[in-house]
């Protein structure tokens, strides 16, 4: 045994609930073996989940820190670990370690600001933590706009929560869109970046983006075109990670490590990094 704590050694967690969100996204509720939250986190931070023998991967924590009972992870099926998780049932044990990374500045920069959240696909997962945090401390923040788009109505993550909870909050406006027309959908149709342009937001907001790289690129261009400064826009990156603490070298971009210096970055900070993320 060693005298040191070792961050690479995880604790055991148990999946207590699996919610099917979309055809390829499930939300997993995780607690420790004694039924508690594995650790405290801030909105935007991540955790390493693993299944011994399958592998370990980094996931954003989608539940808000204000949820004191459990953590949730919305996970899209796209690789070895995620495929394995998708066939897991309640009661399955996994390992968990964290929290990792720099959170969104919800307790300083965001306070008193109008907030504009823009997400595409499973990119809503990390933003849900922030959205539910600012909804919990509603009076600390100004108006909230949420633009969210996905391929189809069936691919919208957290749809029930969005419609029943977010959209009914005072001062919260939700703008949903799907890529193509669909029977039973009378909302907006079109890609997120175009929708943001059509909505034409006032620039007195702080924007938070997350989605596929192509969506982030065009939305960022759109926001700067309508007068947003990059210092008003935050995003969260995703790169391959192994250690989570800036040592294994995998998520190194420029002098930054996405796992510890990110994953949350202000967009002007990203300009200083080589274009490799």
């Amino acid at each position, binding site marked *: *045994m*060693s*005298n*040191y*704590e*070792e*961050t*690479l*050694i*995880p*604790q*055991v967690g148990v999946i207590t609930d699996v919610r099917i969100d979309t055809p390829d996204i499930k939300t997993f509720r995780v607690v420790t073996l004694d039924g508690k939250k594995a650790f405290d986190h801030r909105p935007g931070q991540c955790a390493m989940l*693993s299944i*011994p*023998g*399958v*592998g*370990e991967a980094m996931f954003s924590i989608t539940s808000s820190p204000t949820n004191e009972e459990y953590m949730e992870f919305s996970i899209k099926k*796209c*690789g*070895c670990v*995620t495929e394995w998780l998708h066939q897991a*049932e309640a*009661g*399955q*044990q*996994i*390992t968990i370690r964290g929290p990792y990374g720099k959170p969104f500045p919800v307790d300083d920069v965001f306070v008193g600001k109008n907030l504009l959240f823009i997400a595409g696909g499973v990119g809503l997962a990390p933003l849900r933590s922030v959205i539910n945090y600012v909804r919990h401390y509603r009076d600390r923040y100004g108006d909230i706009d949420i633009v969210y788009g996905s391929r189809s109505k069936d691919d919208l993550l957290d749809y029930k929560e969005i419609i029943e909870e977010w959209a009914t909050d005072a001062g919260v406006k939700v703008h949903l869109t799907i890529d193509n027309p669909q029977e039973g959908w009378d909302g907006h149709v079109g890609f997120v970046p175009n929708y943001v342009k059509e909505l034409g937001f006032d620039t007195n907001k702080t924007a938070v983006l997350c989605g596929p*790289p192509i969506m982030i690129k065009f939305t960022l261009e759109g926001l700067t075109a309508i007068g947003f400064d990059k210092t008003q826009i935050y995003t969260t990156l*995703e*790169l*391959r990670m*192994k*250690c989570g*603490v*800036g*040592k*294994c*070298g*995998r998520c*190194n*971009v*420029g*002098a930054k490590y996405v796992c510890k210096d990110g994953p949350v970055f202000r967009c002007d900070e990203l300009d*200083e*990094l*080589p274009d*490799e*993320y």
Partner: protein
Amino acid sequence: MRKCSLNAVNEVFAEIAKAAKLYLPVDQADGSAAFKEWENGVTWSSALNTVKSPKDLFFPQTEDLMAFKTEGKSIEVIDTRREVEDFVVFGVRACDVKSFEILDRVFIKEPVDSYYASKREKGVIVALACTKPSETCFCTAFGICAEEPCGDVSAWKTEDALYFRANTEKGEALMKRLEALTEECGEDAVNAQKEKTAQIMKKLPLAKLDTGAFGGGKTEQLFNAPEWDELSSACLGCGTCTFVCPTCQCYDIKDFNTGNGVIRYRCWDSCMYSEFTKMAHGNNRLTQKERFRQRFMHKLVYYPENNDGLFSCVGCGRCLAKCPISMNIVKVMKKLGGKDSE
């Protein structure tokens, strides 16, 4: 300063080995040298340096991190870390000694990597001054003094004697154990050797390699330099440079199913490999040029930016000797550094 006759080195080794595992460079059947555990009958190599650096003894090429037992839906995590026993690494060259300062800044930074840190705590480094540096040596470019290495103990080998100077508490404890086998002595012979080596170092072909074009804050100037295309065009992505490099520290974490449980281990990895950054949904470094550039930008710009200007290269020359296409950090520095570094 203390010394012993060269005829008595095996007695010194035997004394050290009584209380701690002793590793030192040993000649291999293929003519190369490697750090091996000393036992009676093992001869200390006179080679300038080993093919692989001694980083292996602190950051092994593969290392078990933990184990798991799984049964049905249950998982048990087993902390397999064991108390590290005292060990001594003898004959570490100045360049390799410096590499531990570079690795320390990665692994012994919060959160401390316990696997590495526990070995650094227990390991005693006896550094050996160089007398016959090679044409591929360029440690001086990084401010390293080949004739005056640091470490817990500094040692100098002359024609007939081995001289020791303890630099740290661990080093003093080791020298205390060797008191009966060594004698107090003057520094004249060592000083004469240092002077001679310093003169040779000045005349080495790479002695004037200039680091001026590199360092923290140089990303913008260097990242998009057109020279990367030519420099990287022949790179095979074999990763040999990474594996022989004393400062490369990227690693992978993998699970191995033993049939009776799972062992999670780590192993050296390389940013030169195409899978290094490959994710389920894409890869942020698709070409060998991007991967090649990452390795050198990290050593010459990113690492110094995060570490008070310290470069992540010690000029040991291993990559010069081993790259199958003869590409190396010196060529990169000369090409990107402009005429000043010629």
